[in-house]
């Protein structure tokens, strides 16, 4: 988009520039006395120049070189027979050099500097020819100075291009949620960019790898190529050098059993981690490339990469934490299954004892032998059954113990009232973007909202909200509201909605009664799952809850205490 805007601007400037040349030339012609041609010739050629320019622009021959040729033909014609040492005349000759950055080619990145190199010969030829084919160094010095300035500009532009290309790729990496495999894309782009960038392309980068310094070792983080094994010559001194010098070059490295001597090591410190980038090149690095490469091109890019790896590392760590949580839950479920398995097995002696007593009763009293046998078995199984009952209750305790139950909220964190408001508001807006949110705050100032704390587990608070919102989605009309009330000691979050005609009012009123009542909840909870979660998690986080139904409006209040 920006490139397109830039291109259109350059097209406009290109047209304005031709008019400037035209008027400038006209001024030179009109203000000087030694005209080589007559007015008609000048006007005719000027008109020809403007018309040719527009025809050229619209034709398939619209090439920068041809436009430049047309410009210089016109300039040579205007300046023919005039003293080139005069500033106004000389300036017209170098005007195309000054304007070169406004080149209106579509692919400016590739052409801008090439275009300048077209310009210099035209300018130099003009200077020598218009000076009656005599070489005058004095007249060429300004052009030489412009060449030098161009070189600086080119270097700056090169650095900017490298940075913008790589930064763009790294930024895309953040937004497109790539994985570890796609990290190689960044390296490939970085290698390609270095290998096509002036000043440093001669290095011919083969591979880039990232290591981390840990316990005096260099551990591989990732690489542009597959690395199975690696070793460094005199590692302690290498690490020492890496820590003290911005760029360490020419150290021997063995990667996948192949030895490389054209190596560049550089350290990028990111928070507490020390990332070491290794760049393998085909050629050894010159002092000039070393300075350009390290200070201005490579360091900012690698620093950006280091930050990306750090973010990835943290994301992976939090992923591991989440997986650990899931594992705990899975272990718990497996344990519960095992216990049930055990319980089923252990119930056998109990069931058998009861069955044996029944068999005893059913056996003919005359069959004394069988009755004696069954009685004997019953007595032995009865004792066995009693010991199994103890085993069963011991196992059940394992499962019922809260501290081992990952579904019981163990972790609470302190959050500011503002954070509570934000998490609640965001959840509400995500689901009901057009519904009302009202905030009542007559007791706390804005500063208190960011200072006063309340305690909860944000994951479980979101589970409560999910259940509440799911009920609202099912049973509410469009008339719904989230009401936030800040009081001195607590925050009241009220979810209010008008109930739709799918709701059986009698059932709702009964459920509300049960939900608010502590006396029979253990009985009712079996039949109302969503409500159970809300109550259970509120209870575990010491969040007050109350539901009511009045004038077709259903309200659920959650009361979160503010910490003193």
């Amino acid at each position: 988009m920006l490139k397109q805007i830039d291109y259109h601007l350059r097209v406009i400037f290109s047209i304005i520039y031709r008019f400037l040349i035209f008027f400038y030339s006209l001024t030179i012609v009109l203000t000087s006395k030694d005209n080589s041609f007559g007015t008609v010739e000048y006007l005719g050629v000027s008109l020809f120049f403007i018309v040719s320019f527009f025809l050229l622009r619209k034709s398939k021959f619209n090439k920068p070189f041809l436009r430049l040729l047309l410009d210089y033909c016109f300039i040579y014609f205007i300046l023919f027979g005039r003293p080139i040492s005069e500033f106004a005349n000389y300036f017209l000759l170098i005007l195309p050099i000054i304007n070169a950055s406004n080149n209106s080619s579509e692919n400016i990145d590739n052409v801008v500097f090439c275009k300048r190199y077209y310009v210099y010969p035209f300018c130099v030829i003009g200077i020598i020819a218009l000076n009656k084919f005599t070489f005058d160094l004095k007249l060429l010095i300004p052009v030489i100075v412009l060449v030098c300035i161009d070189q600086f500009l080119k270097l700056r532009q090169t650095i900017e291009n490298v940075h913008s290309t790589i930064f763009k790729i790294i930024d895309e990496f953040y937004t497109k949620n790539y994985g570890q495999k796609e990290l190689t894309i960044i390296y490939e782009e970085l290698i390609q960019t270095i290998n096509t960038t002036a000043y440093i392309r001669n290095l011919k980068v083969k591979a880039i790898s990232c290591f981390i310094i840990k316990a005096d070792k260099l551990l591989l983080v990732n690489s542009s190529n597959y690395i199975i094994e690696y070793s460094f010559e005199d590692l302690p001194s290498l690490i020492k050098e890496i820590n003290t010098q911005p760029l360490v070059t020419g150290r021997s490295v063995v990667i996948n059993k192949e030895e490389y001597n054209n190596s560049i090591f550089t350290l990028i410190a990111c928070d507490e981690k020390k990332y070491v980038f290794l760049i393998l090149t085909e050629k050894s690095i010159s002092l000039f490339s070393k300075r350009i490469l390290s200070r201005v091109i490579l360091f900012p890019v690698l620093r950006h990469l280091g930050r990306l790896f750090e973010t990835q590392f943290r994301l992976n760590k939090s992923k591991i934490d989440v997986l650990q949580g899931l594992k705990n839950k899975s272990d718990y479920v497996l344990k519960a299954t095992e216990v049930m398995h055990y319980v089923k097995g252990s119930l056998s002696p109990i069931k058998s004892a009861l069955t044996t007593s029944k068999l005893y009763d059913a056996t003919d009293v005359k069959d004394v032998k069988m009755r004696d046998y069954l009685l004997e078995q019953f007595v032995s199984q009865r004792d066995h059954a009693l010991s199994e009952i103890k085993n069963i209750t011991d196992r059940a305790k394992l499962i019922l113990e809260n501290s081992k139950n990952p579904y019981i909220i163990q972790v609470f964190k302190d959050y500011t009232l503002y954070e509570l408001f934000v998490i609640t508001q965001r959840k509400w807006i995500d689901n009901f973007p057009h519904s009302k949110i009202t905030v009542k705050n007559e007791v706390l100032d804005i500063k208190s909202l960011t200072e006063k704390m309340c305690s909860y587990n944000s994951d479980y608070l979101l589970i409560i909200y999910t259940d509440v919102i799911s009920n609202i989605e099912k049973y509410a009309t469009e008339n719904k509201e989230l009401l936030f009330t800040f009081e001195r000691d607590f925050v009241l979050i009220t979810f209010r909605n008008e109930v739709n005609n799918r709701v059986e009012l009698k059932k709702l009123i009964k459920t509300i009664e049960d939900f608010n009542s502590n006396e029979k909840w253990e009985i009712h909870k079996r039949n109302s799952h969503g409500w159970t979660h809300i109550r259970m998690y509120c209870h575990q986080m010491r969040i007050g809850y109350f539901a009511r139904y009045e004038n077709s409006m259903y309200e659920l209040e959650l009361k979160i205490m503010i910490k003193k």
Partner: protein
Amino acid sequence: MKIALFENELHKVEVQFDICNKVFFKDSLEINTFTNSQVFGDINEISNYDLAIIDISLSSHSDKDGYNLIAQILKLQKQPKLLILTGSGNIQSGLEERKLPFIPIMEKPVDAVDIANKIKEVMKTK
């Protein structure tokens, strides 16, 4: 009738089998018990039995679990009838996963009546 009972928690079911034998089969059952697969010895000998009752989760010392024991028996030319004795609830899917045929299941807790009924039911099948 000769029965091979593979069960690691023998103490929880042994009495039921004994009562079952005495009350419902007039002591006609010859029940041999094994807490793990290797105690049985040469698996070809299982052909001498009329019924093999197998618990799926045998003792941790067992070389094979119940599924593998069943798979091995099914490879024999002359096979006894098979009956699974288990406390677990998802044996059927376990059999399907291992591409084993349907085998009758007797779920714990069991008493002498359950055992007798199940043995009779299994022995009736062809």
